[in-house]
């Protein structure tokens, strides 16, 4: 499927999605409540078969915290980018997709470690790189007076 | 009071070339024995002889250990396209001595919660085991500290005692790697002891004796590896494999598998205690190579070819000690070659190799050899 068909197909799965044709990939913005449902459908629907989550990145958008999922189908070779964001910076919580794509297990731990986004139903949500005394360094408001030299 | 190898040696007569007399160490030792008797009582003679022999063997032990470490480093370096040690002395020959001094002056770290007594006992056991084994090896005609009538069995038994040291070292270190290494080592020795025994049995059938001097003497007209046709050769190969395994050398160095268990049973040993394990490993290698040389390759017997009188004459000219050392080092070189070529086996494969391949082959081999001897087909 090309981008347009794919966009229509995703629209048919769920309404009120913000679908944008990016420069490279089709970008779909999903509200956090619908994320897990949509992800599962994208993985399992015969026409989509997005079986390869090739990138999962947490992004601090300033006001919101978000996660970007790059999905690819190894069968049809089409790509879609799912984006979801939560405005709760204190206790951000999203659904885990670790049971849909096993690679998300580690990637979500990384996002939790560096951005502090908690993932519901994650099998083993611990910090990955840093120990518990650290803040969340990839957030834009992270301040570290000792290790970062401001010029 | 020296071993009764004297009985086996022919008395020097005019028909024997002069070098044969010189190369026969029994006359020398006999002379020393006799002259000592002239000066002191038999008791003190024994004590003096013991001292001389003890010190000589100790020196030999240390020199062989140091030389083998150097040789190993050079051999592996050349196989790996490297130069190896080349700084201390010409071609780095004093490198191991320098290393020895370094190890001697290094700290002996007492490990927390380790079983101190066993921890210190382990190096004693490995060294004593190898030391007692080296005593029974005939280096040349008459150059023989003890000549037991069960020589082969004795060397096998005593050298296998070293594994107790390895087990103790692993167990007492309070280290998980060491413990696993020790357990592996136990399983390994337990298995490979069999193959060593059976492959030697194959030759004992030919020789008809377990006394090492007799075995060597029986190879006067040809080494057993040639005399015994294919079974002897197979026995030699099996002996090589299983003795490599018994000395914990690669590709069977599971007890100290570097990439898995860091250093296995001697992980916690430092300084000179580690050096003892290191030394014992090389001496054990020397012992099994000596056994292989003695039992299969004719010990200090020169290489003779049928009726080539001139050739045989030249071969006789080479001293027996050189023959013995040459053969031993050939076997040691083979073992080094194995180590620096092959990847390491896994513990279950190690046991599979023993129980499913070497043992059945050995059993059949013994039967074939017995049959050959029965039929008188051997040379």
């Amino acid at each position, binding site marked *: 499927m090309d981008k347009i068909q794919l966009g229509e197909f995703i629209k048919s799965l769920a309404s009120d999605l913000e679908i944008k044709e*990016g*420069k*490279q990939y089709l*970008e779909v913005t999903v509200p956090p409540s619908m994320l897990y449902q949509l992800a599962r459908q994208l993985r399992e629907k015969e026409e989509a078969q997005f*079986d*390869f*989550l*090739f*990138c999962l*990145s947490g*992004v*601090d958008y300033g006001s919101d915290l978000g996660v*970007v999922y*790059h999905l690819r189908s*190894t069968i049809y*070779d089409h790509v879609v*980018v799912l984006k979801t964001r939560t405005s709760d910076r204190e206790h951000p919580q999203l659904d885990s997709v670790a049971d849909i*794509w*096993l*690679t998300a297990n*580690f*990637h979500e731990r990384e996002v939790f470690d*560096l951005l502090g986004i908690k993932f519901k139903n994650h099998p083993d949500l611990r910090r*990955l*790189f*840093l120990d518990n005394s650290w803040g969340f*360094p*990839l957030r834009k408001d*992270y301040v570290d007076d000792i290790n970062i030299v401001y010029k | 009071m020296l071993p009764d190898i004297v009985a086996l040696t022919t008395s020097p007569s005019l028909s024997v070339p002069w070098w044969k007399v010189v190369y026969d160490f029994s006359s020398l030792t006999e002379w020393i024995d006799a002259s000592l008797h002239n000066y002191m009582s038999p008791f003190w003679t024994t004590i003096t002889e013991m001292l001389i022999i003890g010190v000589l063997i100790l020196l030999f032990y240390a020199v062989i250990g140091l030389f083998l470490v150097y040789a190993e480093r050079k051999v*592996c370096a050349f*196989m*790996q*396209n*490297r130069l190896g040690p080349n700084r201390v002395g010409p071609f780095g020959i004093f490198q191991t001595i320098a290393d020895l001094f370094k190890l001697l002056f290094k700290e002996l770290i007492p490990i927390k919660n380790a*079983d*101190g007594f066993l921890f210190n006992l382990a190096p004693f056991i490995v060294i004593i085991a190898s030391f007692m084994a080296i005593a029974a090896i005939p280096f040349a005609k008459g150059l023989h500290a003890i000549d037991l009538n069960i020589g082969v069995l004795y060397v096998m038994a005593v050298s296998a005692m070293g594994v107790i040291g390895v087990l103790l070292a692993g167990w007492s270190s309070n280290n*998980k*790697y060491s413990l*696993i290494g020790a357990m*592996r080592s136990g399983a390994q020795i337990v298995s490979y002891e069999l193959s060593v025994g059976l492959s030697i049995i194959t030759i004992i059938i030919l020789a008809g004796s377990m006394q090492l001097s007799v075995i060597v003497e029986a190879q006067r007209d040809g080494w057993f590896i040639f005399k015994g046709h294919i079974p002897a050769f197979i026995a030699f190969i099996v002996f090589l494999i299983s003795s490599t395994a018994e000395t914990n050398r*690669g*590709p069977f*160095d*599971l007890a100290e*598998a*570097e*990439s*898995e*268990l*860091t250093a296995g049973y001697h992980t916690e040993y430092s300084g000179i205690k580690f050096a003892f394990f290191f030394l014992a490993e090389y001496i054990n290698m020397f012992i099994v190579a000596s056994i292989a040389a003695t039992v299969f390759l004719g010990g200090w017997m020169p290489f003779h070819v049928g009726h080539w009188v001139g050739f045989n004459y030249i071969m006789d000219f080479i001293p027996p000690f050189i023959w013995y050392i040459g053969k031993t080092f050939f076997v040691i070189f083979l073992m080094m070659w194995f180590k*620096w*070529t*092959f*990847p*390491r*086996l*896994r*513990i*279950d*494969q190690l046991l599979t190799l023993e129980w499913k391949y070497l043992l059945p082959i050995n059993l059949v081999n013994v039967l074939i050899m017995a049959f050959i001897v029965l039929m008188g087909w051997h040379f």
Partner: protein
Amino acid sequence: MEEKEIITTPDEEQEYVINMGPQHPSTHGVLRLLVSLKGEKVKSIQPHVGYIHSGIEKMCESITYPQIIHLTDRMDYISAHINNEAVCLNVEKALEIDIPDRIKVIRTIMSELTRLQSHQLWWACFGMDLGGLTCFFYGLRDREKILDIFEETCGGRMIVSYNCPGGLMYDIHPNFQKRVKDFIKYFRKILPEYDQLLTGNVIFHERSRGIGKLTKEDAISFGVTGPTGRASGFSCDVRKHEPYSAYDRVQFKEILHTEGDTFARYIARIDEMWESMNIIEQLIDNIPEGPFAVKMKPVIKLPEGEYYQRVETARGELGVYIISDGNKNPYRVKFRSPNFSNLSVLNHIASGFKIADLVAIGGSLDLIIPDIDR
């Protein structure tokens, strides 16, 4: 000496936990594996990473695009050149710059040389993991020859920093073509020796066949890419699926195996070495003339938007995800590193095997720890 208590509870109740790493000969780099054992058998593995977490993604947010390049060198330092290329390609794609053929071809040759030396190093270390120490020296001996080529052209041996947005830092050295050709000639003779030493070896076969099986479905789900994924039959070669640089003009096979065990991963890499040599040979004689870099503005600013570029490093798919807000610094950079996903599969494929197998499997995954930690 005080009396020590020796606890003798059955092993089902008590875990025998052993730490492999961070200071362990077989975990290349500072990876810590917490291994629960039952006898010699591995029950489960918990990887602990982060010992050399350097915050490259955070650092990237405060430096300019040309400066990012030198940081990517330090992620997967064995295939540094390909990492550089990923960032450069992404920046060039965002700026919509046409890259002359010369640059593309040189980049491709350098990438393949990088892949070759990476696989040589891997072969060396894998052989050492399995206890064949000689492999290590042969592998490194041949790798030095490629590093010499790098050093002559780029000035660095491992950390090349040869790419920059818009082209290359310098033109290739006049000796480059001759040296590469000499090397290919030399290595075509040496590679069969590798086979004799390790590939055909019966001990090696026993150690690697059927060990650490990874099915295709699991490989895709775990995001295992590179030779590791392709050994499981997962066609994931970015060079084929999304050709970049000059990969669309060369003929090469995507190495696919279906067994998915350690031996397949081994063979996949050995085959890739042959393929890399083929690719280099196709390109080395006809490097087009032209400039070695496109004139760029002194300050590179990416238009607002999101850019994603995938490249095939020696270990798998490296993705560079740049979010730009129009400034000279990126807003967010995410490196999708291949080793990160490859590591996550370790527990899945290695549990149930023995410690020695764990070492073999870990070696066959070819993990580079700075790439995981970033």
